[in-house]
Each structure stands twice: as structure tokens, then as C-alpha cells.
């Protein structure tokens, strides 16, 4: 079943074209990885899906509903029910771990009891329960990653968008968090759209990989197909 549809989208930034006639379909529950070098437009795809920017032309639909088209945002980011983990995590430094998770729940008018329950469950899932009152600045890099994941998932989003979330981690931590993401995906079953420039990361996380180059899709296929493509002489 098609969950997300991007149809003939063109975008530009400061007069420079970023995406040109870009189309993509994403199935519900799949793990799509967008792979490409810096400046190829992969982050722009995530920002379009999140609703931070509108396409200059073309359209975006979620579960058949048009959410943005031809320069206009029809459904804003807060109404798309997506979670996102940013490259720099964007944890709010003035709020505790609990505060970071609670913000979205409060905005959605979730009752206090339910909020406490959801936060406890999510922190338990990412093994961060003991840090509930800590501020982001007091946590290690790996712990911050877990909190960012928990914050993105606490509202049980329809899809999780991840923008090179592991790029600043060392090799060991990178591998551990990857496993964590796959475990959470298996447990919660969300649709994952993951952006990276790292081939190994892409092949490890995705069920489908899309290679981007200069604002266009260069190649798309299953992990097996893409692995074969990379290993060709």
C-alpha cells in the first residue's frame, strides 16, 4: 500500500535548483534509505516530507491526502504526524529529557496520566529511564541519540524521518545505535525514511535504497540490488 507519494516535485533554494522533477513512492512500514553525497538534495526531500518547505511545483500526498502542492503547504508539519531525528539532534537544551518528550504530548492535549505512561514506556524502550530528569547537556552522545529517538517516537508517528543522525558518532556507537533503530522499527512498525551519505549504513538499515545525485534519483532498488551495483567491477 502506498503511504507517501511525491509527484514531479521541483524545488530551488536561493535561485539554485535543488530537486528537479523528483518522484517517489514509499510503502507503509518500509525502511527507505536515501543515499547520496552532500548537496545532492536528500535533506531537502526530508524537509519537503516534514512540511518545513513546500515544493515550487509538483505535489506530495500522505495516505492519498494532498499535503503540499505548487508552492503551497496544505497540511503543516504539526498535522502530518511524523517524527524526525535531526542531524544535530536538536534536543531542546532548556528542557529535561522528560520535558523534551512531553512537549509534543502536551501540544496534542494528551492527559497528564497518559503522558507519564507514554514517556515512561518510551524511555524504557530506549533504556534511558534513569535519565528522565537530566538536561541534554548532561548526557553523552549516545544517550542524546536515544533521547532524540524517544522524542521522535513518543507520539507514535506514522513515519520517522532521520537526517544523517549517526554522522557525528564513532564507529562503535554508530553500530550500536543502528541496531537500536532496527529493534525499535521491529517493535513499533513505523515507516522509516533515512538519509545518509554512508553506503554501509544505508545497506545495513534499509530495505530499499535510493541513490541521489544532483537533485535526481540516480538508482533505486532493494538492498541486494544496490549491494550488487556497488560491488560491480
Amino acid at each position, binding site marked *: 500500500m502506498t503511504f507517501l507519494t511525491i509527484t514531479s516535485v521541483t524545488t530551488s533554494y536561493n535561485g539554485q535548483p535543488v530537486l528537479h522533477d523528483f518522484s517517489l513512492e514509499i510503502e507503509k512500514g518500509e525502511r527507505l534509505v536515501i543515499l547520496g553525497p552532500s548537496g545532492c538534495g536528500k535533506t531537502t526531500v526530508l524537509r519537503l516530507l516534514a512540511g518545513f518547505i513546500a515544493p515550487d511545483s509538483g505535489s506530495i500526498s500522505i495516505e492519498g491526502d494532498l499535503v503540499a502542492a505548487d508552492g503551497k503547504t496544505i497540511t503543516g508539519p504539526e498535522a502530518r504526524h511524523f517524527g524526525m531525528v535531526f542531524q544535530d539532534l536538536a534536543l531542546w537544551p532548556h528542557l529535561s529529557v522528560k520535558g523534551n518528550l512531553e512537549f509534543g504530548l502536551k*501540544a496534542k492535549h494528551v492527559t497528564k496520566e497518559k503522558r507519564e505512561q507514554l514517556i515512561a514506556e518510551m524511555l524504557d524502550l530506549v533504556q534511558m529511564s534513569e535519565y528522565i530528569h537530566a538536561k541534554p547537556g548532561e548526557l553523552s552522545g549516545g544517550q542524546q541519540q536515544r533521547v532524540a529517538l524517544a522524542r521522535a517516537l513518543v507520539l507514535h508517528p506514522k513515519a520517522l524521518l532521520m537526517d544523517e543522525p549517526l554522522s557525528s558518532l564513532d564507529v562503535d556507537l554508530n553500530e550500536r545505535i543502528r541496531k537500536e533503530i532496527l529493534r525499535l522499527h521491529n517493535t513499533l512498525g513505523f515507516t522509516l525514511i533515512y538519509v545518509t551519505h554512508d553506503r554501509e549504513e544505508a545497506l545495513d538499515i534499509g530495505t530499499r535504497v535510493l541513490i541521489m545525485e544532483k537533485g535526481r534519483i540516480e538508482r533505486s532498488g532493494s538492498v541486494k540490488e544496490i549491494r550488487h551495483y556497488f560491488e560491480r567491477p
Partner: protein
Amino acid sequence: MAKRIVLSSVFAVLVVAGLLPVLAMGVKSIIVDGRFSLENYKALLTLGRAQTLVSHSLALSLLTTLCATIIGLPLGILLGKTDLPFGKLLIVLFTIPLLIPPYITAISWFYILGREGVIGRLLGPSLAELTSKWLFGLPGCVLILFSTFLPIVILLTVTYLTTINPRLEEAGRLVSDWPGVLRSITIPLILPGVLLAVMLVLLLSLGEFSVPSFLRYNVFPVESFTQFSAFLNFSAATVAAIPLAIVTFFVLALESHFLREKTYQVRPAHGTAFTERIQLGRNRNWLFAVSALLCFVIVVLPLLVLIVQSLSVHAYALAIAKAGDSLIRSLVYAAVGASALTVIGFLSGYLIHTRAYPFWQTADSLTIFLFALPSTVIGIGLISLWNRPWTNFIYATPVIIIIGYIAQYAAISSRITVSMLTQIPPSMEEAAQVAGAGWFRRMALIVAPLAKRGLIAAWLVGFIFCVRDTGISMIVYPPGLDTLPVRTFTLMANAPAGLTSALCVIMICAALVPVGILTAAFKTRML
């Protein structure tokens, strides 16, 4: 070695120009006839006016701060964060009252709300009687100081908004609408900047003397100035200035303790973050109308009234005849002051930015303390220190005014330098060091050229503050060597409205021309 000598010397200049005068004033206030005595303070407390001075000073500074914050914060967000039309133009317009001597705004409001003002002519003398009564008192003082210091809140809000990592707001936008994000994410993140603005407005309105003096509202700075200039009672003037110095010190100590470590380093190091502007949609037009109306009432209308009042060749000819020499002196003093401030600000800014020596923090705190200190306090302090026969070569010459400028405004040029230096990678200077360049060579050939835009901006902003200065010049100017703001202030009591208005318009032009140059230069990318 050269670096240590130069940076230590700059620190010494700041101490001599600003700290020693204040200490000398404090010592002088407790020495009577060569002995320790609190007689001066007893005299102030038993005057009966002390209670009035305290209540007036507090009421004026607190109300001004409250109004400036309540209106300035949302206005700053509106102008700096949304798609409001003509946002940049409105920021420039709202900033104008800060760039001109506040008493000029008071004069223009006198021409609007005074007994023979515009209101009286349009709506009758009974209403003018009421508005005049209102102007000459707390409400009038609050109105003028509010319009003068509102830009501080707006500018700091706009500046701090640009320091927020846009991703922090986007993370909030995924689950909440903009009002929720502003309330829970944006405003808490810029809170240190807002509180800094609150502190500055509080201290500057507490120390402002020209407006309450013109509107006959007795506060500590007016008392201090009156004792000094009218009664020639230097001890009483000193004692009235001391509470201002103490309050300034304590407020800054609180700021240092509670705020400085709370500033969040939230901007990502790489410059790729795209900042989303809030789309106002249907609210865009009425929000623009309200902002434009406020701008018209507190900025454009007073300026228009002054310009209309001064529209005669005779008025300008008379103004030049009466104050042409003061105008030239103002420009020369301001140019010299701005040049000195640029050099001292560059070096102290370098010291603060690189934290080269342990005294960087003292230098940082000292410049801010002196900037926040009422100008009357610095003026009286300078007299306490320099009014001696063997220092007459300084005290009886314009050098004393330049020292006052350095003391009061070093913080501005220093801060501009710091913000410029943060944009220069440390590796630039390090590469020169590795190549064998000594400190002077590195500063002259690498750091200064890279910080050129900041240095030019520091000079122009320094020039504006020096040319508009009233408090320090009024107290320390040597006989016959006054500045234009001082001449205007002294002439306006008995001068015809046309002459006063012409002097005010000339004063405004002298302060605003550098802003025009600065804006044009940045627009044409000359800087």
C-alpha cells in the same frame, strides 16, 4: 611579550578612564575636611527629598522597563521572525530614537502635548492643559524613555532569534503550531537576551537625566546634576550619584551570576541551517497596521513635528550662528572618540574573545559596568579624579570628554569586535603564527583586515554614541568648549521654538548620517 604589554595597557586604560574615577568619587563622598565621615549621606537622607527621589527613580525605571519589554518582545519576534511586510524598514525606524539624544524626543513631544502644542491648536486649550500636565510628570517621562529604549529590546530580541538553531524550532513544529513553539521553545531559548535587554533598559532609564530634567521630574540623576550645576555642591552631587553606582553594580552582579552561564550555545557550527519565517497569513495586514501605527506615533510623528517647526531659513541660519562652533566641536570630538574607541574596543574585544590573560573577564565586566553606569556618575567621577592643578592639562581640555567617551562606550566597540572575531577561524591567526609572524604583524596583517567590517561598524556606532552624548559632555566640558547637545540643552530654555527645532534637526542629522553611510555601505557590499 608585546601582546601582554599591549593588552595589559588597554586594560589599564579602561581602569584609569572608568574605574578610578568612580572609586575616587566614592572616596570623596566619605571624606569631609580630610576625615572619614558619613555626613554627606546623612544630609541627603534628612533632606526629605530622599524618599521622593527613590520612589520617582524606581517608578520611572520600572515602568519604562515594563512597557519596553511588554511591547518590545512581541514586536521583536514579529519583526525578526515573521513575514511582516517592511520588517527591516520598521526595525530601522524604531531604532532612530535610540540614536538621538533622548531630550530631543522630549522637546518634540513638548511641541505636541505642551500647552501651546499641536494638540492644543487642534483640539483646544483645555485638552492641551491636561496633556501638558500629563507630559510634565511620570507618564511623559515613561513615554519618552519607552520610545528611546524600546529599540534595545527589539534589537536584542531580533539578534538572539538569529542565534537559535532553526532545527530546535522545527523539532517543535512537527508536533505543535507556531504559538506553542514560540511559547515553549523560542522564547525560553532567547530568554538570556531578553533579560539582558530588560537589565539594560532598567539601568539606562534609571541613569537618564536629560529627559526627567527637561520634564521636571526629580530623580537621582537630576538631583545629582542640579546639585553640581545649580548649587555648585559637589559633595551633594556625589552622594546623589552613589546610589546609582551601587544599583548598577548589584544589577550587573545578578546578571553575571544568573544569566551569563545560562546562555545556550544553540547555533550549529556549520552555516547550513535555513531559518523558517512564520507565515502570518490572514493576520499579516492588521499586525502590520498596528506596528506601523506604533512606529508612526513614537518615531515619525515627533520627528515630523520638529522638522515642520524648524522649516525656515532664518531658524537654520540662527542655529548655525548660535551653535555652529559647537556642531564642529561635536563632530571633531565624536570622530576622535570613535577612533579611540575603535582601537581600544578592538584590543579589548580581542582580549575578551581569545581569553588571552586571566584579566579578560574583569575587562569584560568592567566595560559593561561602565556602559550601564549613568553618565552623570561617570562625569562626576571624572571631575573627582582629574580636577587637580597638576592634571589641568587633561581636565581643562577636551581630552576629559574623550576619556569620558572611552569609559562609557568601550563596551559597544568591544562587543562589536568580539562578534566579528567569532566569525574568524582561529586557524587564520595560527597559520600566521606558524609562518613566523609576531603578534603585531599578525594583528596588523591578518586579524585587523579580516575584522575590517567590524572595525568600520565599531567606528560608526562609536561616532553615533559620542555625537549624541549629553550626560558626560554636560558635566565635564571645559568652559567655551561645549558640544552641540550641550549647547542645545542650554539654549532651549529661552530660545524660540524654531531655533530649538532647527538645532534638534541638525543634531538628528549629525547622529543619523553615519547610520545612512553604514546601511548604504553594507547594502552595496563595500564593507
